[in-house]
């Protein structure tokens, strides 16, 4: 990422250094970049709106009357049913429900959850930090680990280290995360043989700790789910980084760099890796978008109170406003992250966006 920063300085800084005579190229570069940015932002806005529309209509396709579903098995008079329908706005024509939904969504109101009788936004903001803590920590670790091991592997491709590395990554990548999670619980939580039960079996906190003890408690609960996520996720980054770097390895510019007398280590980090970063950056940003959605299976096995579990509960009712809201947030996160990746590309590679 340090490369990205220096590249940014280069594109915006170069013309300025060149002085007033270089005014024209400067405006042109700035102009093309601005146009590129505007285009990407407009695209993102259209996508977001499409998601809003889809999230509304897609879940209306689920057959059945949510009010009947909610009250199924209970004695409910026709008047009470009508009250519920009015309360949730289900008595309005679909089109009005939709404009109402869009209008409210713009002001940050995603409606009221049927089952929890609480604003959808509240339920999401309650669970979002938990998910971000878990998947965010895992994200940082597996990205660093994946990129690091991926470059090492590519640079020494075909050797024993590379084969071990990719073999292990592929094996872990193909493991079901809930299975690995349960295995870790049995071995490292309950304890097995000489291994003592070191970590909690689930949840995010013991309940009741405060201050620093709380932080330690949460960190303690965080270890196993993060290890599970990192184990199954780092392989993907590793493989993408490795193959991207392998594509660059035959490049003439690397031969030139070596011919200049640069050390192998330097050739790799300063010349080959930056050029191989584009696909990895895409993957990183897509993963970053996905961290918002959490990982349903891992959250379930470790009873992590995050968005994944909330989404499962919302779907099983189905709690339409909550399902819609979560779907929108998940999709929006991916769109925003992809857009950010698009915006950063020209800084990494000046050829993009010209």
């Amino acid at each position, binding site marked *: 990422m340090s490369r990205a920063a220096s590249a940014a300085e280069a594109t915006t800084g170069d013309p300025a250094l060149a002085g007033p005579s270089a005014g024209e190229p400067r405006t042109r570069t700035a102009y093309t970049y601005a146009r590129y940015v505007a285009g990407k932002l407009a695209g993102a806005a259209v996508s977001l709106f499409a998601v809003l529309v889809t999230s509304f209509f897609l879940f209306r396709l689920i057959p*059945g009357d949510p009010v009947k*579903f909610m009250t199924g098995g209970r004695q409910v008079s026709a008047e009470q049913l009508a009250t519920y329908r009015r309360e949730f706005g289900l008595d309005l024509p679909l089109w009005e429900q939709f404009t109402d939904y869009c209008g409210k969504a713009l002001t940050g109101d995603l409606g009221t959850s049927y089952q929890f009788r609480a604003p959808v936004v509240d339920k999401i903001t309650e669970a979002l930090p938990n998910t971000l803590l878990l998947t965010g920590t895992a994200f940082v670790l597996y990205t660093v680990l994946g990129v690091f091991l991926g470059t090492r592997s590519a640079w020494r491709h075909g050797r024993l280290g590379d084969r071990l590395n990719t073999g292990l990554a592929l094996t872990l990548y193909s493991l079901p995360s809930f299975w690995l999670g349960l295995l870790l619980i049995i071995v490292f939580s309950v304890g097995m043989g000489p291994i003592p*039960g070191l970590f909690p079996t689930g949840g995010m*906190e013991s309940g009741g700790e405060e201050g*620093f003890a709380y932080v330690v408690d949460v960190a303690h609960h*965080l*270890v196993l789910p993060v290890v599970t996520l990192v184990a199954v996720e780092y392989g993907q980054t590793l493989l993408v980084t490795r193959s991207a770097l392998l594509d660059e390895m035959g490049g003439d510019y690397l031969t030139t760099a070596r011919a200049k007398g640069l050390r192998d280590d330097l050739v790799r980090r300063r010349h080959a890796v930056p050029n191989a970063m584009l696909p990895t950056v895409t993957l990183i940003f897509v993963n970053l978008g996905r961290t918002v959605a959490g990982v349903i299976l891992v959250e379930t096995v470790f009873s992590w*109170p995050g968005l994944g579990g909330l989404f499962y509960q919302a779907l099983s009712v189905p709690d339409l406003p909550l399902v819609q809201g979560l779907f929108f947030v998940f999709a929006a996160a991916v769109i925003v992250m992809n857009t950010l990746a698009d915006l950063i590309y020209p800084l990494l590679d000046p050829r993009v966006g010209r």
Partner: protein
Amino acid sequence: MKPPAPPGRARSSWRSRRSRALRLGTATLLLWAGLATPLSPAPQQAAAAEGKKVLTVAVAQSVDSLSPFLATRLVSTSIHRLMYENLTNYDVKDAHPIPGLATKWTPSADKLTWTYAIRSGTKWSDGEPLTAEDVAWTFNKMMSDDGAGTANGSYITNFAKVTAPSPTELVIQLKKPQATMTALDVPIVPKHIWEKVEDFSEFNNDKAFPIVGSGPFVLTGYKADSYVRLEPNKNFWRGAPKFDELLFKYYKDGDAAVAALQKGEVSFVNNLTPAQSAALKGQKNIKVNDAPGRRFYALATNPGARSKDGERFGDGHPSLLDERVRHALFMAVDRETVIDKVFQGHAVEGEGYIPPRFADYFWKPSADQKLAYDPAKAAQLLDEAGYKKNSDGKRVGKDGKPINYRVLCHATDPNDKAVGQYLTEWWGELGIGVTLNCLDNVTDPWLAGTYDLAFDGWSVNPDPDFVLSIHTCAALPASPEETGATDNFICDKQYDDLYAKQLAEYDPDKRADLVKQLQSRLYDTGYMNVMAYPNAVEAYRTDQIESITTMPEDAGNIYGQDGYWSWWSAVPAAASGDSSDGSGSAGVLIGVAAGVVVLVGAGVFLAMRRRSTAEDRE
């Protein structure tokens, strides 16, 4: 290709860079360990020193609301039963009504007025006196406010007026006689707290702790899908519970909950699968409680969906309107196999509608009434009804098409699927086809009546009124567009007459007799084939819980009882203070391990940073 750089210098810079990174890493690690060491074990030691006895219960279901006016899920209503005392309670031995907030109750001669004596000298957990006024206010609020009537509205639909003439006297006037007045499972809330609530349909009672109540426990903490914490109510009239804390902890995965029990992180788990209970059986310090359940597991027949005004809807198979066909299907189901193979012994063979644990109301068919397993007789009944086999060996309906029943099953219930396979085999031998429709959402086809048979099951309360009421004609939806309280559209004149009689019968013995007649009638019609009463399979740690009351007392369940007996009565084991969590001694290791995870990333990052700056200097 390597440059002929002065080797000595390069190597020395390598070494110095490496050692710097190493020193930095070690320092950070020590810092982490140093921070973690003194602080991490401290709370553990403190807890052990205080000898705080915590009873931890693993739960999976999310709390829908902590407002007793809104909550309908089992986990929430069970917690409310611990927080709020009801008017009456159920005896732990045989579940007959016993005093709660009310010490005595008497109906008037015309059966329309009930007078309750409210326990005097009772206090809320905040010290305020609890009077009949609180009770009257709770009921009146439910009657006047739709939001407050959300969860328990069905209890007050027949109420005409509720008053509190004095602090110890409550009077409820009814529109028509109602025998269930000693089974009003409505949490009574403190008026001085709840009268400040503006919108009952939105207030979830989960922000300000402790929450004032009158039950054995006071709610002191709640975090959605993490935990629910309760502490003993020192003002509880029956006496405070013996554990210092009752903690409901979330385990969304059953196997993880079992692991937590094995480790001692939780004291109690329920809803065990046969495999889990087999694995736990015989383990040290663990007791498996395989208790008679309160549910029945049945196969319901679509008797032709209809609304109260007589309009027919849905598309149930017409052959099922013939009692002989229903009896034939009944007699082709081998319940013994269902118990042995599907429930693997963790269930009791079913016949009557109400499980045997409710001894007063339990009913069995007489020998000549019994529809025993008899495939030959079943085939004969089908022949008599005119559903004969064609040349392919398939039974054909009146329309000339082979009969193929659609059976609704719950996609999440493995028992449904397993029994479904047996049905396919058993009914297949009769010449009847079976299509299993296993769905996540069975409610929609069920309410629309677009099924032929469906797997059905209800939890039965000590007062059986509710589960009986769902088969009356009055429970049918008013029109096809509306929702009724009906289970599966049964409407039978004879059944209805008996139902009305039992509801108006205030003599317990006579009422029990009528309830048995109701079950007999239901059995004879063949609409509901009760196949089994699944057991409640639970387990707890004997090194944490010395003793705990089951309900019924001699052989009963612990989780989800009627009343608060289990958690209120639980006695901590002598050793439970320090055995609640084995991780205390490993505090240092844990702190370091948590640090290491963060350091894996940070270390790599730092090392790379160091090297890149060193490179720049080169």
